[in-house]
């Protein structure tokens, strides 16, 4: 299905671009609407299984800047079942130009125990059939040496109804650690985030960074050493036009 994306001027970043977290949020909203149609919306999941959806993995490729005012359409491909996860692939179109691509691996999780719901248990809720095909998102190898870059206190404004820090918030920290924002902006060629163990309010998130063959690696670790998430980011070489350059171009 195709959805119109609504990127507001008031939500752009320093460079007048739609930030990766906002792209993810918009795609996640579309996935949520389709889950409702498919019979596995959060309300029904909670009511019938005591379960919710959490993000297991995410891949973002940003081919061209997305700016407010663009008529961006999100094309959501049919869902794919891979093990316990449901894969959703989205293409963000501006006319014929594909500006970004997002792949999400969504996990059904029991709200209280935080254990993954077995596919057989979930199967009775689906109102539409699964699609086969496609390949799952792989798991990445990380460099051995990573340096502690920052410690972050998890606050409730960063958390959602699942009680944990939102995936969108992770993306901001990952982007900052990867050097996405700075004097110049370089689009994300590819970013993969594997979400492992959630961060709850009051916890400290220790952010570690490393680099290998031009790829930035970032991991979020709990105080007790458990891995919370890990991410790899490669940035495009060319600089993205600044907000001012974009505005001048628009007015022409």
């Amino acid at each position, binding site marked *: 299905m195709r959805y119109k994306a609504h990127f*507001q*001027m*008031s*939500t*752009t*970043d*320093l460079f*007048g671009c739609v*930030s990766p*977290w906002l792209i993810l*949020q918009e795609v*996640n*909203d579309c996935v*949520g609407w389709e889950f409702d149609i498919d019979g596995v919306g*959060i309300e029904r999941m909670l009511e019938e299984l005591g379960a919710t959806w959490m993000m297991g993995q995410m891949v973002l490729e940003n081919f061209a800047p997305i700016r407010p005012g663009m008529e961006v359409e999100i094309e959501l491909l049919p869902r794919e079942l891979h093990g316990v996860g449901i894969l959703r692939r989205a293409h963000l179109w501006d006319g014929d130009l594909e500006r970004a691509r997002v792949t999400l691996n969504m996990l059904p999780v029991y709200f209280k125990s935080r254990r993954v719901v077995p596919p057989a248990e979930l199967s009775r809720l689906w109102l539409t059939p699964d699609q086969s095909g496609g390949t799952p998102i792989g798991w990445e190898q990380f460099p051995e040496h990573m340096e502690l870059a920052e410690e972050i206190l998890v*606050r*409730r*404004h960063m*958390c*959602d*109804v699942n*009680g944990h820090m*939102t995936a*969108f918030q992770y993306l*901001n*920290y990952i*982007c*900052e650690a990867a050097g*996405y*924002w*700075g004097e110049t902006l370089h689009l994300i060629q590819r970013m993969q985030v594997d979400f492992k163990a959630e961060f709850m*309010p009051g916890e400290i998130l220790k952010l570690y960074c490393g680099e290998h063959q031009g790829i930035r690696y970032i991991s979020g670790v709990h105080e007790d050493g458990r891995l919370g998430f890990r991410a790899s980011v490669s940035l495009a070489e060319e600089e993205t036009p600044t*907000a*001012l350059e974009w*505005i*001048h171009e*628009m*007015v022409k």
Partner: protein
Amino acid sequence: MEKLYDIFITGDETDYFHYVSPTSYQKIAEAANYHATKRAGLEMHRMMKEMDATWMTASMHLEICEDIFDPGPAEVYVDPMVINRVVITQCLEVRREGKPIARCEINTMSVNAKTRKIIPPEKILEHYGIPVIQGTGSMARLVMPEDMELLETICVRYSDCDLNQHLRAYRYTDYVCDAAEYWAGAERKKGRHLYIEYSGECRAKNLLYLYKKDDGAGGTYVKGVREDGRDSFKAYFVVE
């Protein structure tokens, strides 16, 4: 009031307790303000190109009339924008099924994007041939108590900055809500009024010192002070 547009409040816009938070309302208000301003003929990119001018939020009063738990549709209504001295005031209402769920007065300044000097709103409106309507006054200035205590220091992040190269207005609201312990504890508190006044911008990597004081009657004063000692913002948040 005139209907501006329909919106859909998604689950992603709800908070830890699954309610629409003051921050989410502020995002709705800012988007509506931008849209209403643009509809009146003030396009930000033209203002930037032709007058080196941009909009900055000067102050806001948000009143949450009804707690909204469920994501779903809502409508945004606006009054005509008016001038109150150096600010343009936009009053708007968010309604669900015709019933107000939040009201907001948002005051914006037009500022030279380079020098950060205020541009009188009449000058902008005249430039674009838009009729000037004088208002009867905007939100009163906030007076902070003197004995406020330092709560914490925040380092401004790039991800929290906007097109104006400074900390975006709604992020301050998160800081205020956290400082007022709006989300603390197992029981959700009901936010009712948020008054916030922005006086000095913070840029990425700047430090922002947060001070607070409870008034003992459900209200919390919060202010942010910059590294140079100047006030960054003042806020008063009332919960039930």
